[in-house]
């Protein structure tokens, strides 16, 4: 939004956001935060990050445009401004990223009036942390093959099964849960629930990733109980509701909050700086034309992502409303992966030094970050699934399944 086209309310709000963020930017936590919200396991980090998110919410930087009855601030066209300013301010990320990024759009689109009033405010304030119970050991890319069962008993449902890759499951009060009420109907047999995590039927067991961190979990549901009032959408409409959730996860939805982490542009600048600061064979890596070409190919794609976002808002040039947004996840995650691969290459053998080694460049940030880029290329619909979606929805190619 250029200055010219802003309303007075928006312009004032932007100034307010800038000043507020400057003034309220928290001191760093004594123990360095993990690179992303989904890797947080330290309870001290949880408290620190929840307090930060609550403060931002109170100030109007979260739920800026949503109606007051849902805990919003009732402004117009201000969320994007807030999210941009948060990103620019290099402040800690919002811990409740699943709540903000997935639960909020799902509830807004498909939730009952009661559900919206009850669940939205504590998501904004990070009072309730949310996790997502979609994937199962046997249902990854083919999500609709999920088997967790839901059996109706009076006004409640009995859930049995197991979920996997559940980020923040160890902190969460609620789970966005998909379970099957009908085994004979693959897509129409799924129902969507908001499952309370604090009950005897739910066990959360951490899974260690290849990085050694344990941001995500396996969750066992053994006679877990969910009230029928916590169902989202009709019985058997779970797949449709889930698609609404996944659309926002895949970068095409309306942003309600902001997940502030290092922007690709910033990481790109760091990689260029790394090449300028690293000497090998008597010259800077940056002065080696082979390396420079490799770096600049990714620089080009990083810049192209920004310009894609810009072009996607111009109707006459975007090739259709969803064409560019649906590319966001696959392009962004693959660019991030290439950037990290290059950083490792620039470091050479130094990249073998990992977190905790006293000689590790940036305390092992680059090998750690590289391994974590697979979160981007695999979770929330792998790059392969993204390419199916793009081919089918944008180019109209025949559906793979």
């Amino acid at each position, binding site marked *: 939004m250029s200055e010219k086209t802003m309303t007075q309310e928006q312009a004032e709000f932007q100034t307010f956001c800038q000043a507020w963020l400057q003034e309220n930017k928290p001191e760093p936590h004594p123990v360095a935060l993990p690179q992303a919200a989904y890797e947080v396991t330290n309870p001290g980090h949880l408290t620190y990050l929840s307090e930060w998110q609550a403060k931002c919410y109170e100030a109007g930087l979260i739920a800026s445009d949503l109606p007051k009855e849902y805990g919003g601030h009732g402004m117009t066209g201000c969320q994007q401004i807030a999210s941009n300013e948060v990103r620019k301010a290099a402040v800690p990320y919002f811990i409740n990223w699943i709540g903000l990024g997935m639960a909020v759009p799902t509830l807004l689109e498909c939730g009952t009036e009661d559900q919206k009033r009850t669940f939205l405010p504590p998501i904004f304030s990070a009072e309730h942390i949310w996790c997502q119970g979609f994937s199962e050991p046997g249902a990854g890319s083919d999500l609709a093959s999920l088997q967790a069962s839901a059996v109706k008993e009076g006004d409640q449902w009995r859930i049995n099964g197991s979920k996997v890759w559940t980020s923040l499951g160890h902190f969460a009060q609620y789970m966005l849960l998909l379970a099957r009420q009908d085994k004979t109907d693959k897509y129409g047999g799924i129902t969507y629930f908001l499952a309370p995590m604090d009950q005897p039927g739910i066990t959360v067991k951490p899974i260690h990733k290849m990085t050694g961190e344990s941001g995500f979990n396996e969750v066992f549901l053994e006679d877990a109980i969910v009230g029928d009032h916590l169902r989202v959408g009709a019985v058997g409409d779970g797949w449709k509701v889930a698609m609404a959730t996944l659309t926002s996860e895949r970068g095409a939805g309306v942003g309600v909050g902001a997940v502030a982490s290092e922007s690709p542009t910033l990481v790109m600048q760091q990689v260029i700086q790394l090449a300028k600061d690293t000497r090998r064979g008597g010259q800077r890596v940056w002065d080696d034309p082979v390396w420079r070409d490799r770096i600049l190919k990714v620089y080009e794609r990083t810049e192209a992502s920004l310009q894609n976002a810009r072009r996607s808002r111009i109707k006459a040039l975007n090739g259709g409303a969803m064409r560019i947004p649906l590319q966001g996840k696959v392009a962004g995650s693959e660019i991030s992966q290439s950037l990290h691969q290059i950083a490792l290459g620039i470091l050479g053998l130094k990249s073998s030094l990992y977190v905790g080694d006293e000689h590790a460049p940036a305390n092992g940030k680059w090998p750690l970050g590289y391994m974590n880029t697979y979160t981007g290329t695999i979770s929330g619909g792998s790059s392969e699934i993204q390419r199916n979606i793009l081919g089918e929805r944008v*180019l*109209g190619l025949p559906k793979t399944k």
Partner: protein
Amino acid sequence: MTTPKDFGFTEDISMLKDTYAKFLSEQKTVENLRPSLKGTEDPYHGDQRPAFYDAQNWQQTVDLGIHAVSIPEEQGGIGMGLVAATAIAEEIGRYALATPLTNTLLATFLLRAIDTSEGNALLEAMAGGTRVGLALYGEDGSLEGDSTDVRVEDGKLLGQSWYVTDAQKSEVLIVAAHSADGIDLYKVNRQGDNVHLFDDRIVDLTRDQARIQFDHTEAQALTTAGQGLMSIQKALPALLTLTAADIAGAAEWQLQTTAEYAKVRSQFDRPIGFFQAVKHPIVDMMITADETRSLVYQAAAAYDFEPEDAARCAHLAKSSASDTAEFCANRSTQLHGGIGFTWEADVQIYHKRQMHSQFLFGDGVWQRAKLGELL
């Protein structure tokens, strides 16, 4: 200074682009080209391909005023910037058009950078429909400043210009030559005395190209005191952006045509687009084509609104475009299978245009080398 969020792609430019796109969509641009190819297919025994362009199409383009889109109003043009010219160049690429319009747009920006009364007079002639081409390269085909093999002696040109694109479509040439003061630019009447044109046999079927020999040729100086090199450098971001836009338009055609083919061509009882080995590379064509297109509009906006960032953005755009040209051409032929490898298929025509465009004004590697110097 910053560029507008919408790249300065105004309602007026949008209408202009639509008008030109509609005009081209009503013509059979590739089919019209076909008769000129008859009998020239065989590279060993075939005839030299005559330079082709559709004179009626060109006249209508002039009548619509499209050719003068970026010629300043003082010289009788419409006076729009590079964003508008880029929008037009994209359509030229999409229709793989053989036209003097490409050179007209390039020459417009070179002459605007030259900014002399002689240069402005030529802009005025262009507004009236005069077709101008560029003769900037020496034999090495590089843009490293002084690569030209032409020199000035007693005000006359001597030597030869290489790889002169669409030379046959041009009435006037802007020639880079070594003067006493460095590199200067000269205006030459292409059909005048002591100008010898030798047609190149080239891969690209939609353009022509020639080597031009100057033998004490009459020329009018458009720049003096070695200012030519500076003019080329100043115009270069525009030349890169326009060429990249042509590639982006052609890549979009390659993407759509390949996707359509994958929906109708059936093997193993299914349209081949069902198979991920086909579907995913088509999506990759889209991803790379979209990146190029976005960088192209960024570069055009930078040239118009933030000139200090124009070189960086233009190198980015042509770097991306050159690689997109190679990738989309490659995948379009491969995914069409045997039919795509034949002379009859239109994909081969676009493929060869892209092979040419990839190297015009420098390929991806060269763009990135130049870009690196700016970072």
